[in-house]
């Protein structure tokens, strides 16, 4: 770089300077987003709702949050890679739970877990290859693997409900606590930390974000994008498997219909957390907060004796409100 070229460059600066914006509540809320919402909700609930702040109730909130949360933090990878969502988590969670409870028969839990792991890898591979290599639409691919997966599960399991013995190892895991905290909560937080590290600090997580932002540019940087997609789906599958283990252990039962609705509920948590459905932007930590937020909200409504219909309406309104604030803030700040 010569001095001449540099001086030319200096003369050509055309970039508008970034100016300081006046304080705007909307902007402030949207930049803190889900952090603010969750804090406000928790504080308000603790003051106005009897029993909310009790240890028992906090345990309930996390029991509500743990299985869906574990699935959601994993599915965040698929969403960030700009592939909408993974509908097949419904089949995967149920499969993992059935394998853990039914196949292990309390005698060979490690072998059952290994089998579940192989199945999870298979899901990740099939979804990932169809989307990453064949460039097929992720919604339809995962819809079809849901059909296939649930079909196979019901064909083999006969759709029965399975449950472990009252004093078995799985049940004691499901009820275990570390200090006052249920083990499922610890698993959720551990998964969040691990996946957050993977997304923000590792090569692979970097590529997932880059792929979600611009897949062509990522490919032309010499990246094997098929593996990025397969990886994103596999992480989701492994998270779904662990979610299935936690769900199965918590209830000590397994049935193929137990995870109905996990697909869109997980997506709702991811979106409330603030991850962009266009891909490229988002974080695992935000997803965790999104899950906690939805769980706290549901918990408050149950404590207040509100019916199921009202709960659904509130969650729907919340999704729109959370994202609307973000959008209005961006408009207010003029970008």
């Amino acid at each position, binding site marked *: 770089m010569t001095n001449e070229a540099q001086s030319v460059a200096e003369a050509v600066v055309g970039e508008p300077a970034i100016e300081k914006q006046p304080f705007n509540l909307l902007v402030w809320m949207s930049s803190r987003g889900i952090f603010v919402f969750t804090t406000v909700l928790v504080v308000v609930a603790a003051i106005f709702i009897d029993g909310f702040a009790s240890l028992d109730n906090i345990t309930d909130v996390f029991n509500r949050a743990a299985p869906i949360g574990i699935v959601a933090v994993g599915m965040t990878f698929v969403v960030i890679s700009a592939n*909408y969502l993974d*509908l097949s988590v419904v089949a995967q969670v149920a499969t993992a739970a059935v394998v853990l409870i039914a196949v292990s028969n309390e005698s060979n839990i490690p072998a059952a877990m290994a089998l579940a792991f192989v199945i999870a890898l298979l899901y990740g591979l099939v979804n990932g290859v*169809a989307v990453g*290599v*064949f*460039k*097929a*639409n992720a*919604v*339809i*691919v995962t*819809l*079809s*693997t*849901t*059909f*296939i*997966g*649930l*079909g*196979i599960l*019901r*064909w083999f399991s006969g759709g029965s409900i399975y449950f472990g013995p009252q004093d078995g190892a799985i049940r004691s895991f499901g009820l275990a606590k570390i200090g006052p905290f249920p083990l499922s909560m610890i698993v959720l937080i551990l998964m969040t930390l691990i996946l957050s590290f993977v997304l923000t600090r590792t090569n692979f997580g970097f590529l997932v974000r880059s792929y979600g932002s611009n897949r062509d540019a990522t490919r032309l940087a010499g990246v094997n994008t098929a593996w990025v997609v397969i990886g994103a789906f596999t992480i989701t599958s492994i998270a779904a498997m662990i979610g299935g283990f936690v769900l199965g252990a918590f209830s000590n039962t397994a049935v193929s219909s137990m995870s109905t609705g996990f697909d*869109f509920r997980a*997506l*709702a948590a991811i*979106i409330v957390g603030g991850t962009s*459905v*266009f891909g490229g932007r988002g974080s695992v930590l935000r997803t965790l907060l999104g899950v906690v937020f939805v769980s706290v909200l549901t918990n408050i409504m149950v404590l207040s004796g509100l*019916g*199921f*219909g*009202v*709960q*659904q*309406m*509130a*969650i*729907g*309104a*919340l*999704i*729109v409100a959370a*994202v*609307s604030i*973000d*959008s*209005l803030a*961006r*408009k207010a700040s003029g970008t």
Partner: protein
Amino acid sequence: MSQAQGIQLGQEQGGLVSRIRVTIARRTEGRALALLILVAIATWITEPTAFTAWEVTLGRVALIGLVALGLTAVILMGELDLSVASTLAVCGVVMASIDNLALGVVAALAVGLIIGVVNAFFVVVVGINSFIASLGMLFFLRGAAFVISNEEPVRLASRDAGIAFGKPFLGPLTPRMVIFIVAFIALQVFVTRVRAGREFYAVGGNREAAYDAGIPVRRRIFTGFMISGFVAALAGVINTLERTAADPTAGSTVLLASFAAAIIGGVLLTGGRGSIFGTLLGATSLGILQVALTLTGVQVDVQNIVIGLVLLLAVITDPNSLRTVVGSARSLFQGRSGSHPVG
């Protein structure tokens, strides 16, 4: 071209054969047609009842396809409406809650339009992504259906009218099929011949250009969501009439089936590409497949596996992606020898 010839940029017009070839190459429904032919042949061989009792098959196609047609209008603009199934349920419940049948139908359809307006409001005015706006509505409207219905099926006041509605009235055709055919023709004409509908492609294919060309993009998006909401409401009304009761849990399989029909039909989820006709083909393939599988009496789980496999194969056999796959497989094969020095 009377005077001086311009520079030659375009291709020459060819004969009839090449013109036909060009016409085919311009269409987006090829894959859907291939799948339909395939499903039809397989069904013809194994389960011809699906065709001899064609009105049953048509009824199933109408059940799957009606909502998908409305949804296609929205997808063409590069937007999504995940709330269609919930719209269907809530509109049915609203209709059945009103004792006067005519008033109920009008109210339900109006609610459908309003839902479309609300969806569009969030997308256009507030400026949030339609995927999220309609996901919120998916939960909200389902909850509303439970609240309005008191979490129970609501029976229609005039049951006889409903039962009469389910009977054939035009030859072997029931009102549902006629409405479906009319909706198909209306929407097909709308997006091919009517300016507002044709401009949906501009809104989805190049929104910036649509703005710049003076197309009222916001109004088009409102129109699209209102079509989708209205058609979903229409499906809710038809279902409620035919069933003589409104079920707040209705439509659990509608959303994903509609998406499947549209995508198999060659409609691009990111907008600007696809057709109403393609969606019809997609819905027809799925309808025939479902009826044929039911008739075979194969275990339901196996039926689901087959439907899943057909869907999967349908989406991974896009000619463009196959070409890429074949190409990269070959270069992978060559690449193995290529990593060594070649002298």
